[in-house]
C-alpha cells in the first residue's frame, strides 16, 4: 500500500467488566482497501472489541476502556454508533436488521432517504419532505452495482432469499457517502455455500475500490480465501497477527483454541459399557440453534460433552430432547423410547435438565428459593404435596419444601439470606446452583446441563463443576454437558462431540489434539482442503 498511515489502528485496547478481563492489550491495524479476518472462539472478545470500535453506550456505562482507536491516524472516541457511522464505519450484523415490508431500495436508503423539500417543511420541519423515489432507486442501484451482484431494487425483503438480504445490508452500508471501513460479523453464517462464494467475491470487489473490511467468521477457509491479514483473538488477547499468505486453516484452528496452559484433567469415573442414551436423527426447531440431524450414544455413568460455536445447534439438542422445542427423531433412554415434544413425559422418565437460559427458563425470579427448587418435582412427580381433610385434596407441603431447599442451600453452598429469599436477588452463580438443585430434586438418572458456568464467577464455577463430578461419581448419574467452553468440557468429560451446522461434526476424546477440536468447530473436515491457502 502506498499510503503509510493505516486507515484504522487499535492500540493497546483493554477492557474489563467489573474486574472480569475481556480484552487485554489488543493491538492491530487495518490498511486502506485491506481485508482483515478476525477469528476467535465465542467469548474471545470479538464482540466487545467491535462494541468499543462503535462507541456502544454499554462500554461507557461499564467504565470505558483503555487504549486508543485511531482513524486515519487521528484518535477518535465515538459516543454512539451513529458517530461511528458518520465517521465512515459501517457494520453488518449477523442478524438481519432490515424492514421486511420494505423494498430493497427502501432498506438501503433507510433513514437516509433522498427528499424533496416543500412548504410543509417550513412549518413542521424536514420530516414533511416528500421522498424522491426515483433518486433513491438510483442510489440503491449504484450501491448494488458496487457490490457486483444482481439485486432487484423493488423486491420486498420479506420475499427475498437469505443471501439477497445479506447483500441488501451490505449495500446499505456502502450507500453511505463516506464509507471507508466495513465490519462484517459472521456474514456467511446463514448463507449457502454458493451464496457465500458470491459474497466473498463482492468483498474483494469492494476492497479493490478502496474500502477496508474487517471480516469476522468462524468458517476458516473463507477467511483464508478472502483476507489479506488474519488476527486471531483468544481469551481477550490478539495472539496472532499474520499475513494470510503461507497460513493454513490448520494453523488458525490451533491458534484459535490452543491454550498456553494445559487444562487440569481430573480423574474420571469409570463408566459402564452399556448404552444409556441413544439419539437417532434428531431434529429440533429451536430458533437460532436449529438441530438438523444429530445421532449419538452415551454410555451409562458417562459425562458426555457437547461443544461447538454459538448458533450451531448444540443447545437445541438438550432443549429438543426435553420437549421444549418442536422436534423429531428417535430418543431412547435405558432402552425405553422417550416421548418427544412432551416435557411432562420426559421429566417422568428419570431425566432432568439445567437450561442455558437461567433467567428466562431456569428460574421463577419473582418467587422464593423453596418454590424454585421444589416446583418441578411437585408438578412432574406430585411430590411435596400433603393431603388435607382426609385426602380430599392436596396442598403444598411448605415444610417439606423448606427442608428440601435448606438441604440444597447447605450442600451446594448457596449464599442467600434464607430459603424465603426471591431468586432474582441472588448472584448469577448462586442462581445457577438453584437451577442444579431444581434438577437434582427430581432424582434423575440422566441430566442435561447447558452452559453451566456461563456468566458466573470462578469460585461458583468450581463448585458447579465439582458438584457435577460428585453426582456422576457417587450416584452414577449420566450427564450430558453442553458448553461453549472447550477447556471446561475437556476437564470433565469422557468424550466430547462437536456440533457444527446442526450436525455432529465429530466425537473426540478430551485428550485429542486441540487443533482437531478447532477444525471440527470451523466445519473443516480434517482430511480435505486443510491447506487451501
Amino acid at each position, binding site marked *: 500500500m502506498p499510503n503509510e498511515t493505516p486507515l484504522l489502528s487499535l492500540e493497546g485496547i483493554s477492557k474489563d467488566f467489573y474486574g472480569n478481563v475481556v480484552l487485554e492489550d489488543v493491538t492491530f491495524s487495518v490498511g486502506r482497501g485491506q481485508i482483515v479476518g478476525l477469528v476467535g472462539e465465542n467469548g474471545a472478545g470479538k464482540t466487545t472489541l467491535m462494541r468499543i470500535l462503535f462507541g456502544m453506550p454499554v462500554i461507557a456505562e461499564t467504565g470505558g476502556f483503555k487504549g486508543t482507536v485511531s482513524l486515519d491516524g487521528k484518535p477518535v472516541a465515538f459516543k454512539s454508533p451513529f458517530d461511528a457511522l458518520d465517521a465512515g464505519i459501517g457494520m453488518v450484523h449477523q442478524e438481519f436488521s432490515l424492514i421486511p415490508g420494505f423494498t430493497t431500495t427502501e432498506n438501503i436508503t433507510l433513514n437516509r432517504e433522498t427528499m424533496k423539500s416543500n*412548504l410543509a*417543511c*417550513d*412549518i413542521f420541519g424536514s420530516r414533511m419532505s416528500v421522498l424522491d423515489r426515483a433518486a433513491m432507486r438510483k442510489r440503491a442501484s449504484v450501491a448494488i452495482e458496487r457490490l457486483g451482484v444482481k439485486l432487484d431494487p423493488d423486491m420486498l425483503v420479506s420475499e427475498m432469499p437469505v443471501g439477497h438480504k445479506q447483500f441488501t445490508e451490505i449495500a446499505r452500508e456502502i450507500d453511505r457517502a463516506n464509507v471507508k471501513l466495513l465490519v462484517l460479523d459472521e456474514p456467511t453464517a446463514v448463507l449457502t455455500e454458493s451464496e457465500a462464494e458470491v459474497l466473498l467475491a463482492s468483498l474483494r470487489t469492494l476492497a479493490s475500490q478502496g474500502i477496508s473490511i474487517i471480516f469476522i467468521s468462524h468458517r476458516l477457509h473463507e477467511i483464508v480465501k478472502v483476507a489479506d491479514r488474519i488476527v486471531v483473538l483468544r481469551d481477550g488477547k490478539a495472539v496472532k497477527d499474520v499475513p494470510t499468505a503461507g497460513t493454513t486453516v490448520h494453523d488458525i484452528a490451533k491458534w484459535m483454541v490452543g491454550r498456553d496452559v494445559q487444562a487440569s484433567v481430573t480423574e474420571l469415573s469409570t463408566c459402564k459399557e452399556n448404552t444409556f442414551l441413544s439419539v437417532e436423527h434428531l431434529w429440533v426447531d429451536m430458533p437460532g440453534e436449529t438441530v438438523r440431524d444429530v445421532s449419538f450414544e452415551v454410555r451409562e455413568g458417562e459425562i458426555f460433552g457437547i461443544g461447538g460455536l454459538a448458533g450451531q445447534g448444540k443447545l437445541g439438542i438438550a432443549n429438543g430432547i426435553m420437549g421444549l422445542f418442536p422436534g423429531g427423531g428417535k430418543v431412547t433412554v435405558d432402552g425405553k423410547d422417550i416421548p418427544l415434544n412432551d416435557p411432562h413425559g420426559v421429566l417422568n422418565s428419570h431425566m432432568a435438565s439445567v437450561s442455558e437460559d437461567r433467567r428466562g427458563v431456569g428460574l421463577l425470579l419473582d418467587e422464593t428459593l423453596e418454590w424454585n427448587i421444589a416446583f418441578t418435582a411437585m408438578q412432574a412427580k406430585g411430590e411435596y404435596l400433603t393431603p388435607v381433610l382426609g385426602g380430599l385434596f392436596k396442598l403444598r407441603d411448605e415444610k417439606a419444601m423448606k427442608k428440601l431447599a435448606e438441604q440444597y442451600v447447605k450442600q451446594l453452598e448457596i449464599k442467600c439470606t434464607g430459603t424465603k429469599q426471591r431468586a432474582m436477588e441472588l448472584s448469577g452463580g448462586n442462581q445457577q446452583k438453584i437451577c442444579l438443585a431444581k434438577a437434582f430434586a427430581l432424582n434423575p438418572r440422566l441430566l442435561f446441563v447447558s452452559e453451566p458456568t456461563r456468566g458466573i464467577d470462578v469460585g461458583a464455577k468450581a463448585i458447579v463443576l465439582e458438584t457435577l463430578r460428585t453426582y456422576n461419581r457417587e450416584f452414577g448419574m449420566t450427564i450430558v454437558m453442553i458448553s461453549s467452553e472447550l477447556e471446561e468440557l475437556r476437564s470433565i468429560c469422557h468424550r466430547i462431540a462437536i456440533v457444527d451446522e446442526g450436525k455432529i461434526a465429530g466425537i473426540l476424546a478430551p485428550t485429542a489434539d486441540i487443533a482437531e477440536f478447532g477444525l471440527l468447530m470451523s466445519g473443516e473436515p480434517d482430511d480435505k482442503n486443510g491447506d487451501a491457502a
Partner: protein
Amino acid sequence: MTKRSMIVRGALLALYIAVGIWAYSTGKGYKIFVDNTDPAVAGAITVAIDGATPVKVRLGGYTGIMVKGTGSHRIKIMREGAPDFIGEFRFPPESTAAALAVSGIRPGSEIVVTPVDPETRDR
C-alpha cells in the same frame, strides 16, 4: 432556511388568528325579536330571515330569530290573503339583540330595528 421557516410559521399563526377573528365577527349570532302587534291586520304572520326556515308569529305575540352577523339581512313576511313582503334591514351595531315591529313596516320606508336587552325579552 430558518428565517424562511420563521416567516412561514409566523404567517400561519397570523392566518390562524385572522380566521378566528373572521369566524367570530361574521359568525356571531344575534337575536331579532319580531313583534306581531299590528292591530290593523288581524291574524298570524310567517317570517323568514336570510332564507331560513319560516317561523309563525301569532297575533299579539313575538318570536326570537337568530341571525348571523351584523350588517344587512333580508326579511320575508308572509301573511294569508296578502302579498309577501320582502325587505332589508340592518342590525344595530354594538348590540346583541334587537326588536323589529312588524306594525312599523311601511312599504318603501326603512325598517326600524331597535336595540333591546336580551335578558328582559327572552322567554
